[in-house]
């Protein structure tokens, strides 16, 4: 089983949509996939036509000391979504502290999932260090857009040698082209060697509560995501 996480460099770069589309694409490629929502916004399920913010979820269950794994939804055979659950701000701060206290919590859970899934994808939140640090991932990707804010925000992250994935790339924009050129030049090792293009279909997919690959299989973004999934397969099989 391969654990992978996506996390935005800042909010609103399209992390959840990408994660949902990637999970769907991996599933299309014959993988058994579990998507785990690590964000208190609890909105990942929306991409799979689940209710907005279901009450039940792994965070709720952990706080209530219930079995956490009972709240996953099976979207299709081999494609499951585990929501966060409804949690008050005070509660998720407490949970974050708990996660910091027990850094092995999700590792143990991942070990338990190993037989059932080929891939577990985590949608990580911006803040809440306990949430972000707890899952131990083989592939940890930071999502960013080609804009000045992301360029600034990624600088402090470079020390950790993360992987960066450019989302919503629009080659018509001189600024975006130049930024990507700079990144390709400076951070060759860190940059995922393909960019996801800006495509209206991505936004429409969420409006239809579907992952992009299912809503518009012929679109450029679906094509890009399939390429990303193939890259993940190659990367995941590679001994670290």
């Amino acid at each position, binding site marked *: 089983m391969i654990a992978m996480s996506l996390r935005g460099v800042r909010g609103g770069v399209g992390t959840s949509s990408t994660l949902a589309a990637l999970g769907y694409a991996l599933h299309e490629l014959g993988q058994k996939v579990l998507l785990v929502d690590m964000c208190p916004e609890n909105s990942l399920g929306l991409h799979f036509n689940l209710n907005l913010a279901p009450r039940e979820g792994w965070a709720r269950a952990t706080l209530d000391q219930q079995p956490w794994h009972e709240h996953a939804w099976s979207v299709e055979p081999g494609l499951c979504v585990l929501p966060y659950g409804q949690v008050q701000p005070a509660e998720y701060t407490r949970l974050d502290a708990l996660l910091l206290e027990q850094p092995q919590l999700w590792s143990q859970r991942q070990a338990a999932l190993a037989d059932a899934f080929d891939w577990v994808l985590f949608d990580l939140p911006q803040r809440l260090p306990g949430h972000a640090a707890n899952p131990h991932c083989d592939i940890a990707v930071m999502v960013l857009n080609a804009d000045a804010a992301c360029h600034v925000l990624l600088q402090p992250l470079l020390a950790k040698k993360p992987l960066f994935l450019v989302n919503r790339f629009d080659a*018509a924009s001189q600024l975006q082209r130049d930024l990507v050129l700079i990144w*390709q030049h400076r951070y060759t090792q860190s940059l995922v060697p393909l960019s996801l293009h800006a495509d209206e279909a991505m936004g429409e997919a969420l409006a239809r509560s579907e992952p992009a690959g299912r809503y518009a299989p012929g679109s450029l973004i679906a094509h890009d995501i399939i390429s990303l999934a193939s890259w993940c397969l190659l990367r995941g099989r590679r001994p670290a």
Partner: protein
Amino acid sequence: MISRWFPYTRLRREQNCTRFTAFTMALIQALGWVFLRLESPNWKALRAQQWRLYPHLANKRSTIGDPLRYIVQTLWLLVVRTPNLDQIGRKRTRRRVGAYVSAVLNIVQRPWNLLSNSFEHLPAALSPQVSKGSHWWSTMRWPTRKVLYIALGTLAVALIVLCITEPFGYLAQLVFVILLWVLAMLVRRMPGRFPTLLLIVLSIIVSCRYLWWRYTSTLNWNDNLDLVCGLILLIAETYSWLILLLGYVQTSWPLNRQPAQLPPDTDEWPVVDLLIPTYNEELSVTRGTVYAALGLDWPKDKLRIHLLDDGNRPSFKTFAEEVGINYIARTDNRHAKAGNLNHALTLIDGDLVAIFDCDHMPARSFLQLTVGWFLRDPSLALVQTPHHFLSPDPFERNLGTFRNRPNEGELFYGLIQDGNDMWNAAFFCGSCAIVRRTAIDSIGGFAVETVTEDAHTALRLHRNGWTSAYLRIPQAAGLATESLSAHIGQRIRWARGMVQIFRTDNPLLGKGLTIFQRICYTNAMMHFLVGLPRLVFLTAPLAFLLLHAYIIYAPAVMILLYVLPHMIHASLTNSRMQGAYRQTFWGEVYETVLAWYIARPTTVALFSPSRGKFNVTAKGGMMEENQFDWQTAKPYLVLSLLNVLGLGFAVWRLFTGPKDEIFTVLVSVLWVVYNLLIIGAAVAVAAEVRQVRHTHRVLTRLPGAIRLADGHSYPCELVDYSDGGVGLQLSQPQQLPVGTPVSLILQRGNREFVFTGMLTRSHDLFMGLSFAQLPPEQKIAFVQCTFGRADAWLDHNSGFEADKPIQSLKEILALGVKGYYRLYEYMPAWLRLMARPFLRVFQWLGSFLPRMPKAPTPLSSGQ
């Protein structure tokens, strides 16, 4: 029922046959039903396939000739092996007959196959012994080795001289040529270059023997007419023999040079001046070249682009300023292109000078691939790359061979230059090349004395001890000449220029050249003298048929025994050496088309080299409709009329001449028919196919994507491009009205570019975009993503078919027939009216010829 057994009324009513025809056909059918048991299953199976097996009789009105057609076709079907015929009940007989035939063939074929297979594996099987032998040879003491060399050489020369000069009778000559031919056929199967050298040796022996025989025993010294005609032919043959031999030397060992690595530090890279000379070409043609030059991968501060405008046109000046390149014009235009380049040399100071004609778009990798050699070899003066054409030349367009046969230039740029490079004799071709500034200064600039300044400049460089290199990697593409007359005009200029150099600065004389350089240059120049000899070959048999001159004073059988091996060996060897670059017999067509036109200027230049002027080759034009270039074809029409006249004389001689001449007449007729068909192929080229596009589309397969105005994007494949638009193939159909703005996303390396165009056509999965209004920087990017890609022209030969001499001969002959048919199509109405009865007769005769049956359909052969 009666209509089935005796279909008289049906034939009368449905096919409107005459009474006699209908009666005869019906009678035959009735007899068939009575005597042949046509209702039996075997006949039924055959009848079900009738129209497949007799395709020319399907959907045809029954006529009285049909029984004969059936008989001819049936015999054909019995003799010729066709796929799936075995299913039709005749299996057993076929098998029995086939078994006999193959048993007889096996007696010869099995040992032959064994032998030729063992030859094929010989190099691999022999290699340990060979390496042992060469080791033994190299450890031998030098004096011993020298003695052995001399002994072996003397023996070989003696044997060769014996083979060439020994006079043989019929039988001895027959045995000799068959032995050599068998040897050649065996050697041909072996891979590698040494077998090629062996083939060359065999071919040289046979050809020398032929020429020796011609000189010693085929001239009739007793008759003036015979002697004059015979000598003319002999001189022409000697010329061909010389060209053949020089060609063998020139291309025996192509170098296949690889690019040299550049140093990693770009500070060490030299400064390059890129010159784009232009005189009267259109700005639209020049733009693409400038854009491509701007996209070359080279440090920006080390690449200077200069537009050398000899036409002094303000529009060019404005354009140069717009894109930020240097504009150089001069007040006069003395010495044409060479003068233009020399003028520019006074204003620039880079280390290297790259030269691109204004219609040759360089690929971005041009400098990176070529400059390395200048750094590695300080005496290198020149690196030349091939001239590749993205549009069809007149031959390719009019004969429909674009992208599936090597074109006329392919032989030169694919093989000859590579062969020259082996002898350090690769020469400058005026464009797509890069020269060292100090070298060009040392010979006083580009040569201005002749109309082919390029070859002359290279000759001077070589004379002064500089070396040259040839990289056989297409790194630029340009437009081919657009009409046959322009093409011929260009070749006339080359021919005249090369002969001028031959006279004024003969490579055989003067200092500074190696023997092989002299051979390569001489061959390149002599090659253009082909006009007169070719005309001699095209008219030679007429000397006998019309004037009754014995041009080859020997028995016809003996002539065949000598001339056929000479031709067969030359074809076999050349097919092996040149097959990938020029298919057998195509050279004949190219030469024939040019022969008349270069004959006069080269002869004039040979005697008075200072005459003649520079003419610029027109390119990038259009041809509104199909037309026949009567002006160009005129000499060939005269030649073909002469040959037809010769055929008439042949018939007359056949019936009235002496009996012992019949075979000679027949051989002459064969020669005349061959000439007629070759001339026909030349005539076919003159039928110009229309060319309506302003811009030429280059076929490709590149990934890309489109983006619509509403923000939706879709992946696509770029299937063709030109400088004004692209053709795309989508994975799902888009319903978009023509005129919609659509953006195309293309990649170059790992960078992406977006070009906004307009939808011009949309059909199912295909989409056409036009980019009429791209801003200049976008145009540069577009050229870089398409024409300027480093790999853009690498696979241009992927569609070429392998050379098969016999197949190639058939094609050329078929082309000849097609030429005459095209001629008929373009004739004025009154002439066509006169020709029609003859054509009818031919068509009627042709309708009796057997055809290949159509491929079986599953329905009819499903038993």
